[in-house]
């Protein structure tokens, strides 16, 4: 099945710093989403981005589907950005478009 690899696995930032999280996937996808799991366990959908670029405040994401990767940018990080960031995809061929395969996540800690 499709493989989803996220890097780095852990990231520690000083408040105000910028960061880039990467998601590589092993096959063509028709669904890609980024999620943030906060320290209380809540999973929040950040972006639905199977291709192209989107921005939402200090966060932006870019997916280059032909090269099978997606990037999540966090600018001017805040302590509330801490948590685990997950990339999830659904393969283009086979399976269901809605059934997402999750990467192992990037754990982000933002220090004040």
């Amino acid at each position, binding site marked *: 099945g499709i493989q989803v690899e996220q890097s780095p696995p852990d990231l520690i930032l000083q408040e105000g710093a910028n960061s880039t999280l990467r998601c590589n996937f092993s096959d063509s996808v028709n*669904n890609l*989403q980024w*999620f943030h*799991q906060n320290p209380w*366990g*809540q*999973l*929040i*959908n950040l*972006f*639905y981005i199977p291709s192209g670029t989107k921005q939402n405040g200090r966060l932006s994401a870019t997916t280059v589907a032909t090269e099978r990767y997606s990037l999540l940018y966090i600018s001017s990080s805040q302590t509330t950005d801490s948590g*685990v960031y*997950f990339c*999830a995809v*659904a393969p283009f061929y086979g399976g*269901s*478009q*809605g*059934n*997402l*395969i*999750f990467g*192992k*996540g990037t754990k982000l800690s933002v220090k004040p």
Partner: protein
Amino acid sequence: DTAVSQTPKYLVTQMGNDKSIKCEQNLGHDTMYWYKQDSKKFLKIMFSYNNKELIINETVPNRFSPKSPDKAHLNLHINSLELGDSAVYFCASSQGQGRVDYGYTFGSGTRLTVV
């Protein structure tokens, strides 16, 4: 007004028991899901369900069964609970299956502990 609500939030039970977790969504979404998050934070799909189709992850033991009384509800029943079933279970919903999907909304999770 919670979009996807799960109950209970915490569940502690003994091995061998049967338990249920309830999930309701008020978003009008077509599809609902159950995911399991293990102790290493890995999320894995268990089921997806819409009005027409139940898709079961083949690795899920048949002790787990989803039950959907209507489009807004997808409950998870677990029989003969085992220690390895301890995890956080997330319900989610999305609009679209087989057409454009605009993203998941997750519930807040149910932490199941089997003792």
